[in-house]
């Protein structure tokens, strides 16, 4: 596989940026990615969605007084808004000239998990997402402070119920276990005591605020220090711990490059991260430029986003239906704004079960046949998973125009080489023989039906195990 294509996929979602990386070089590409402005506009679909606590209470009151039908209606509307938000985000990922910001936002999204299902307020989920977007390349410590004090987070991890005398340890635990230090670097007492520091931190107008009556102002010991700490000070203490850089560095390596990063690499980049005062930008620059020089293609299983957007891009599908993509992601175990639990998607091998693999191949067949993804039923556990709904059945609304880019001047081997370079991180003799069975030596690239034949080759290639890896 061409290296620029590989890194276009790793730093984004498709081969779209390969040419740019080749032209301006990785370093410039990263600089320009870091320099991108983030879109601070509140999307239209959130216009009617309740935002302030007052608006929420008003909506709630309206709910109480009206009939149950109206209540259902309102709930339905919020679910629709949530679907709009997924589509809005997928569109950003797909359309951005430099998609690294969105890729990093998605990384943080899966790190500081706060799901719509539990938070229930679309605007708070949006705010949470915007904090990640704005701080995608910022400072890890600053980001941690901001995100813990988002309305979405305090509700998601039940800190709204954490009060003096009636402590709830959920947020305190995940702050140490999942968001920062990782298991083994703190004690159970730290969690209990941390809950005291977090007591009273609940939802506010724009972000989470302490409510005086629920605060616990006794002194406590936190990671060896004693005092009456509040959230910002607690995070300062966490970031003084020696093992703070490694958990996040490991996760970054996993998200972008290796399903199983070597521990020495984690230490190496982690130590640098600490030296840079947890500035994310220099860390990413160092990781990407040093790893770019290595021969490490095929070390990560594509996540469903990378899989779907790459296919759509290769097939030059204009205006893909993002809602259908979102549903596909859900079936593939990557429901945006809705991870199964606070740990987020595990990634790596867990992306691929046999059913998921089968569904990926079926989707590849559908798209290559010029049909859009349709509503996919829940995946059954038996082998007969392929749901009928997934098949489009001659519905004209679901027809897609697909067109593959390939060199019309080439002979069979050149065309095979071109596609291999774009799609497969490696191939062997047997693969090559199969490819040449599909495009034989006397294949005429100028003939009228040659597009069909090359599309068949493409279809075959994207169903190989090698296509699953970058």
């Amino acid at each position, binding site marked *: 596989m061409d290296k620029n294509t590989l890194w276009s996929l790793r730093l984004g979602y498709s081969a779209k940026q390969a040419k740019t990386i080749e032209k301006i070089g990785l370093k410039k590409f990263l600089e320009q990615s870091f320099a991108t402005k983030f879109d601070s506009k509140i999307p239209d679909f959130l216009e009617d969605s309740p935002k302030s606590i007052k608006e929420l209470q008003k909506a709630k009151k309206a709910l109480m007084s009206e009939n149950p039908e109206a209540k259902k209606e309102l709930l339905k509307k919020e679910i629709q808004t949530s679907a709009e938000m997924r589509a809005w985000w997928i569109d950003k990922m797909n359309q951005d000239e430099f998609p690294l910001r969105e890729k990093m936002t998605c990384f943080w999204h899966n790190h500081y998990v706060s799901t719509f299902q539990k938070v229930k307020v679309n605007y708070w989920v949006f705010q949470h997402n915007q904090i990640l977007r704005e701080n995608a390349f910022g400072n890890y410590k600053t980001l941690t402070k901001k995100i813990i004090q988002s309305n979405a987070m305090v509700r998601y991890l039940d800190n709204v119920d954490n009060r003096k005398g009636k402590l709830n340890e959920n947020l305190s635990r995940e702050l140490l276990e999942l968001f920062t230090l990782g298991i083994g670097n703190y004690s159970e007492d730290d969690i209990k005591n941390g809950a005291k520091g977090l007591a009273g931190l609940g939802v506010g107008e724009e972000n989470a605020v302490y409510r005086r009556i629920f605060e616990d102002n006794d002194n406590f010991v936190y990671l060896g220090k004693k005092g009456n700490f509040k959230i910002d000070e607690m995070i300062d203490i966490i970031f003084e711990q020696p093992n703070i850089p490694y958990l996040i560095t490991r996760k970054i390596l996993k998200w972008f490059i290796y*399903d*199983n990063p070597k521990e020495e690499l984690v230490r190496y980049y982690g130590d640098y991260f600490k030296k840079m005062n947890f500035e994310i930008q220099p860390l990413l620059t160092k990781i990407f430029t040093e790893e770019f020089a290595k021969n490490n293609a*095929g*070390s*990560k*299983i594509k996540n469903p986003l990378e899989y779907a957007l790459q296919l759509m891009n290769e097939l030059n599908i204009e205006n893909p239906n993002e809602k259908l993509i979102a549903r596909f992601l859900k079936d593939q175990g990557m429901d945006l704004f809705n991870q199964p639990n606070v740990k987020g998607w595990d990634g790596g*091998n867990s992306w*691929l*079960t*046999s*059913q998921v*693999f*089968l569904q990926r191949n*079926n989707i590849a*067949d559908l798209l290559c*046949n010029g049909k859009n993804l349709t509503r996919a039923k829940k995946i059954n556990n*038996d*082998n*007969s*998973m*392929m749901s*009928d709904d997934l*098949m489009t059945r*001659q519905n004209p609304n679901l027809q897609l125009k697909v067109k593959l880019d390939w060199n019309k001047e080439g002979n069979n081997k050149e065309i095979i080489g071109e596609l291999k370079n774009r799609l497969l991180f*490696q191939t062997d003799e*047997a693969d090559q*023989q*199969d490819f040449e*069975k*599909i*495009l*034989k*030596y*006397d*294949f*005429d690239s100028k*003939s*009228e*039906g040659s597009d*069909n*034949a090359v*599309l*068949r080759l493409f*279809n*075959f290639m994207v169903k190989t*195990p*090698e296509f*699953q*890896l970058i």
Partner: protein
Amino acid sequence: MDRRKFLTLTGTFTGGSLLLPDFLYSFGSQKNLIVGEQCIVFVQLNGGNDGLNTFIPFEDALYYDVRPKIALSKTEVLNSAKGMAFHPALKGFASMQQSGDLSVIQNVGYPNPVRSHFRSQEIWQTAPTHQEYLSDGWLGRYLDLQCKEHQPTAGINIDTIDNLALKGEEPNSITVKDPDRFKTKSKAENDGQLSKNPQLDFVRKVANSVVEGSDDIQKALAKSAPSDVVYPKTGLAKNLEWISKLIKGNLNSKVYYTSLGGFDTHDNQLSIHKNKLTELNDAVFSFYEDLKKSQQLQNVTIVVFSEFGRRVKDNGRGTDHGTAAPMFVIGGNNRGKIIGNNPNLSDLDNGDLKHEIDFRSVYASILKNKLDFDFTKIGIQNKALEGLF
């Protein structure tokens, strides 16, 4: 196949589905209960099989004139009828013909023949009317109309790559890369050769573990009675033996497709062709005997064909790409005739045989007579070939 719906419909016609007797309803809702379903097994000879040295006009003096180096002598060929004879390697074919189970269709091809492997195979597999480019195969189109619900095992293709002939709107067929993988599940897991990349090994393992419809296949294999026939140890024989197990296990696939490569005999034809035809003969004959012994032969139609024949005149030790060639149809209660005239070696088109029977009329006959299907629905406009079944 949508047998269940068919039964429901029948019930409706005879007075409403509510009146359908219980036993018949459960009959219809069980997939593999009916024995005696028709299926077709295609054996595609890749590379362009030399028809003239397969089914030989050995009484035609011209044959020896145009092929001084590679003609097969009168004394070695296996006499058939009408002045034709089989290649000496095709003993089983000759014997099947004597038993009345093999038909030969002579000079099969299509107008404006294309001598490119790539395009000619595409034409055979898509069966277009005027050589227009079609993205779906003829069997794929048939299965689309035949299968009301997506049914992954309606067609079975044994190959490393998907088969254009079976490609349709819906994935009603599966490609099985290696029948051995279906031996037992635990064995298959140990089979994969490890690469140096653990992630790749993982994906390969997942990929090997899932072939859609593999459960149905496993069930059929488990149900299938063991065979009395010992198959040769060749790739084609292995594939056909496996197909016979699926048929005997009532998998209910309509179409099986497998192929044998190596027929592109530009050079050193005599020995290569002999080897290839031996492999073909031994594999097909074992399959035939197996089906006969298990009383399945009347339900299974075997079709042997190639994308084109070869040039009438030899090029020294081999032959170049040509046009029309014989097709062989075995079993399925065919009439066991030789259909069509002997190849006319004195009336050629640029050195190639002129086709007399269109391959699409053979397809039409198979669809009509064996699968009870109106072939015009998939765009075949030729008349069905008479005298085959």
